[in-house]
């Protein structure tokens, strides 16, 4: 008893935090036994298809639905006229704007929803959709957000005419949405005026799309007899959807059940509420039958929630040694035709103000203007916390630019500016408080692992050889992320604080069920939450069933995006577990006839301090909770926790990329990519590595190829996976991962969140490497995507392509 071997065996059985427990969700996915929204089939279910606008901007003269309605198998054709009496032709967005559910007199982006055809199956619906006749009068189109702000620019939002304030303050132009400023403008100006050195760089973070493998969709089922509504939906935030549906429909939330079944990736694309959902719900209420709506790939890529589209100008003021004195940023944010960003209410530019990065920059000022254009709405956090990729991209590009201007090595300049370990908790000039970090050792570890000096020497040799067919680039990124939204004092969605929740019930046999307000979409929550509970309560992870996504059973939570599950719901899981452990202690004390303080928790049991062999296992305690509790104690063993984090968490990392560019074709070959991540306490190293691989791959996709381009008429180009770059294993580089551990001081288990860091951190790292390949030729910045074509154009411009 109590041998090392015994301890190891019990620890192994527990499968708690720190072990690479295999993912519980995989057996069903690998066997094709997942249950996605499109797998849901209900008796009498009908199918809805959207009729969409071919024009980016047009007045609707007439909609004739008679032929479509007469088509055999068609049950309804809805237009804005049909929704008007219900006041559902417009809906509120999460950003405080409104969005047309079905176009009301005009369309403002290509593929905008115009009519909703409901038929007995999707084939009939598709045929009937073609029979809806819409007469358009095309209007002038504006795609460029700078042109959208010209005095005579076409009016995109007729419904807002005359409204000179929006939900984020004054609007200074008919296509202007908001201006958001943060930091000390005057002081920053003064520092710039006196600076020894300044640099300035314009950059575009292009419009991209999260492109989850599973497109968006829902099955809405209104039961006319019971008066309740059930919606199966691909949602990253089912509880928020319930509240929104309640507000829109005036059905009480108690009669609405939202179920997010298995989700095939979200990446921010599945946070908002889309016209298709509303149309399907209305159709179900009207027809009294379940209605399914599932996007096609093209619909997904061109209508539901894009990301980024930030036109940024960054400026740094520094001294001659490269010590940064101030940062100034101006952003023109293209939000498309409706402002449907999913940000905490207070922050129309999300958490962009993390843009001072890992550096001790004393002064900063940021100004962001949101602008309407004739493009589809969105502006969501694509595998990142709200606008953090944009922020990190900006500061990382700027520090590279400064290094170039001063001729200081890019690793060295970072070290000169890092926030030191002893400065944490660190207050940034833009109002954030970083919880913990230890940046320099992380970078040093990467420099050593990659033999940075050796790489520089090799690069110098290549640069000296005019016949070298390839250009070699080294990229560096030392990023700080901000995740875990968030403290409810700062963060809410539609007025609901961004807490999260967990409810755990331990059954008499010592197994348990746990439910959270989040929803897994590939992150492996079923696996990792159980590990937290296992460590905290002593119940083996294999005995814990976790469940999320059904609002009828799960406690209210704000959902999964912005890496908030572990920082927020994970904390609730730990706290609820601790409540259970405390009750278990009381029961154990009662059973062992000692005082609770005489007990110590030991993996899976409470034992009497100093008395070997006197212990009660969690299994025994669980049983006792149902038949032999201390006098005055309620039966049962369960706990609920709603966790409102005191702060965000700030994961960080140091990345390095080495690539070779064929100057004749512009093709880029990533030779090595080394990613060191510090996400605080590590719950499951295998899952962390998987998440990092995924994030790096999506970062690679964005940096090297993803873009949603438009022509001048507002046509979305490249709206299929032939053109929209989703890398396969053939294109994806080999990833090397590493870590340090700097726990969050304010999180119950010290965890910070990880799955988005690699996306946030890798993108500027790739740009850094590509630009570095050309930096000896005077290039300071190149906009993404770094496709062969665009890289070749750079070679061509420099006269080195032939």
């Amino acid at each position, binding site marked *: 008893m109590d041998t090392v071997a015994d301890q190891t065996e019990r620890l192994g059985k527990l499968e708690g935090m720190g072990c690479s427990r295999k993912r519980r969700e995989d057996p069903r996915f690998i066997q094709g036994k997942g249950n996605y929204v499109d797998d849901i089939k209900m008796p009498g279910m009908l199918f809805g298809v959207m009729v969409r606008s071919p024009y980016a901007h047009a007045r609707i003269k007439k909609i004739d639905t008679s032929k479509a309605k007469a088509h055999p198998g068609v049950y309804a054709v809805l237009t804005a006229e049909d929704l008007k009496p219900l006041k559902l032709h417009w809906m509120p967005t999460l950003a405080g704007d409104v969005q047309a559910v079905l176009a009301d007199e005009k369309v403002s982006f290509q593929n905008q929803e115009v009519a909703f055809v409901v038929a007995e199956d999707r*084939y009939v619906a598709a045929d009937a959709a*073609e029979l809806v006749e819409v007469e358009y009068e095309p209007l002038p189109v504006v795609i460029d957000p700078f042109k959208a702000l010209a005095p005579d620019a076409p009016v995109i939002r007729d419904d807002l005419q005359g409204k000179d304030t929006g939900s984020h303050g004054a609007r200074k132009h008919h296509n202007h949405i908001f201006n958001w400023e943060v930091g000390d403008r005057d002081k920053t100006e003064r520092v710039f005026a006196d600076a020894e050195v300044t640099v300035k760089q314009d950059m575009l973070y292009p419009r991209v799309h999260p492109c989850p493998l599973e497109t968006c969709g829902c099955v809405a089922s209104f039961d006319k007899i019971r008066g309740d509504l059930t919606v199966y939906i691909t949602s990253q935030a089912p509880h928020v959807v319930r509240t929104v549906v309640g507000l829109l429909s005036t059905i009480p939330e108690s009669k609405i059940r939202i179920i997010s079944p298995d989700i095939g990736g979200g990446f921010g694309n599945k946070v908002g509420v889309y016209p298709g959902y509303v149309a399907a719900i209305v159709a179900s209420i009207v027809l009294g039958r379940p209605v399914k709506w599932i996007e096609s790939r093209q619909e997904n890529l061109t209508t539901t929630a894009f990301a980024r589209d930030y036109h940024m100008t960054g400026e740094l003021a520094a001294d001659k040694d490269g010590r940064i004195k101030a940062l100034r940023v101006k952003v023109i944010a293209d939000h498309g035709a409706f402002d449907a960003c999913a940000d905490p209410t207070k922050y129309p530019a999300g958490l962009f103000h993390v843009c001072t990065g890992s550096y001790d920059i004393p002064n900063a000022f940021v100004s962001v203007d949101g602008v309407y254009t004739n493009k589809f709405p969105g502006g969501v956090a694509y595998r990142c916390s709200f606008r953090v990729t944009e922020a990190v991209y900006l500061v990382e590009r700027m520090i590279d630019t400064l290094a170039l201007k001063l001729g200081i090595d890019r690793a060295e300049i970072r070290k000169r500016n890092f926030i030191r370990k002893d400065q944490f908790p660190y207050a940034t000039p833009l109002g954030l408080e970083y919880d913990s970090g230890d940046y320099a050792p992380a970078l040093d570890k990467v420099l050593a692992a990659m033999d940075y000096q050796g790489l520089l020497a090799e690069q110098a040799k290549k640069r000296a050889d005019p016949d070298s067919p390839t250009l070699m680039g080294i990229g560096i990124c030392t990023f700080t992320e901000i995740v875990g939204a968030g403290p409810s004092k700062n963060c809410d969605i539609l007025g609901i604080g961004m807490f999260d929740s967990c409810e755990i019930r331990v059954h008499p046999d010592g197994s348990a069920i746990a439910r959270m307000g989040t929803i897994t979409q590939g992150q492996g929550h079923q696996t990792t939450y159980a590990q937290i509970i296992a460590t905290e309560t002593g119940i083996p992870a294999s005995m814990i069933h976790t469940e999320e996504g059904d609002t009828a059973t799960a406690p209210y939570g704000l959902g999964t995006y912005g890496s908030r599950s572990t920082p927020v719901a994970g904390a609730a899981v730990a706290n609820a577990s601790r409540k259970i452990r405390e009750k278990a202690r009381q029961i154990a004390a009662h059973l062992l006839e000692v005082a609770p303080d005489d007990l110590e928790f030991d993996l899976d049991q409470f034992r009497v301090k100093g008395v070997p062999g006197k212990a009660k296992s969690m299994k025994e305690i669980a049983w006792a909770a149902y038949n032999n509790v201390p006098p005055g104690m309620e039966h049962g063993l369960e706990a609920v926790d709603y966790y409102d984090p005191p702060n965000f968490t700030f994961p960080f990392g140091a990345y390095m990329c080495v690539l070779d560019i064929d100057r004749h074709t512009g093709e880029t070959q990533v030779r090595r990519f080394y990613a060191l991540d510090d996400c605080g306490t590590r719950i499951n190293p295998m899952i962390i590595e998987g998440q990092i691989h995924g994030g790096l791959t999506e970062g690679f996709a964005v940096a090297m190829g993803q873009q949603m381009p438009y022509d001048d008429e507002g046509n979305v180009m490249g709206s299929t996976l032939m*053109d929209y770059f989703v890398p*396969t294993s*053939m*294109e994806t580089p080999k990833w090397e991962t590493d870590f340090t551990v700097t726990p969050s001081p304010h999180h119950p288990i010290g965890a910070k969140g990880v799955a988005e860091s690699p996306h946030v951190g890798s993108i500027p790292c790739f740009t850094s490497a590509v630009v570095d390949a050309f930096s000896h030729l005077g290039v300071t910045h190149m906009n993404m995507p770094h496709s*062969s*074509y665009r890289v*070749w154009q750079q070679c061509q411009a420099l006269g080195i392509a032939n």
Partner: protein
Amino acid sequence: MIPKPFEYHSPQSLGDAVAMLQQYGDEAKLLAGGHSLLPMMKLRFAMPSHLIDLNRIPDLAGVSESGNEIRIGAMTTENQLIWSELLQRKLPLLVEAARLIADPQVRYRGTIGGDIAHGDPGNDHPALMLTLDASFVLAGANGERVVPASEFFLGTYYTAMNPDEIMTQIRIPVPPQGTGWCYAKLKRKTGDFAAAAAAVLLQMKGDTCTGVAIGLTNLGPTALRASDAEAALTGQPLTADAIEAAAQKVMAICEPAADLRGDETYKTAMAGEMFRKAIRTAMERCTR
């Protein structure tokens, strides 16, 4: 993403298929691997009322040798081309190119006949067929005719095939022993069509080029044969200057359409680049 309704037919013989084509005329389309046709139907660019599936007709697939000629059934899939030992030995150019077409899923179903008959300049087989001096056996109501590749590709999605004809076989003369080959294809990712691609077959004696064939993919309204470049090289020592001069002649005939892969300038430059790459590799593979 949902095609217009259509009638599906599955003839069991070539004769039945030809008869159906005659019966339904313009309303009908032949279905081979479906990897060009079905995407177009799903986008409702193609809306046939009758789909005549060639997959149940016996003897339309397979690779064989007849005298100095390789015969490939029109319904032979890319995957079958790749794994044909005969082709690996006698027409390695075709194997190399087939491996670069689309992705494994497409290659399991997509057929060489469909790839050629589709008339898409973005497809790889048309340029290969020009380079290899192939000819096509077309079966119609009045029997068979054989059309050389050089007379087959008339425009984008436009070939010398009559609407009631079915391609049954591809015939390719076996290149002389020692011929060097290469298909160089630039694409953005697995599963993409060529931004530019060049096929080269090369015979040499010592340093001198004794024969060369050059084909180009996705660089004009049809696949192209670069005859000027071929003429300039034939009989010449393959010096760097000679290759460069030929590259210029290759680029001179390109009329690519701009798309997201690149503009005309880029694609034309890449045609030159792919040609340079292909001829250098072909030289290495030549037995002189």
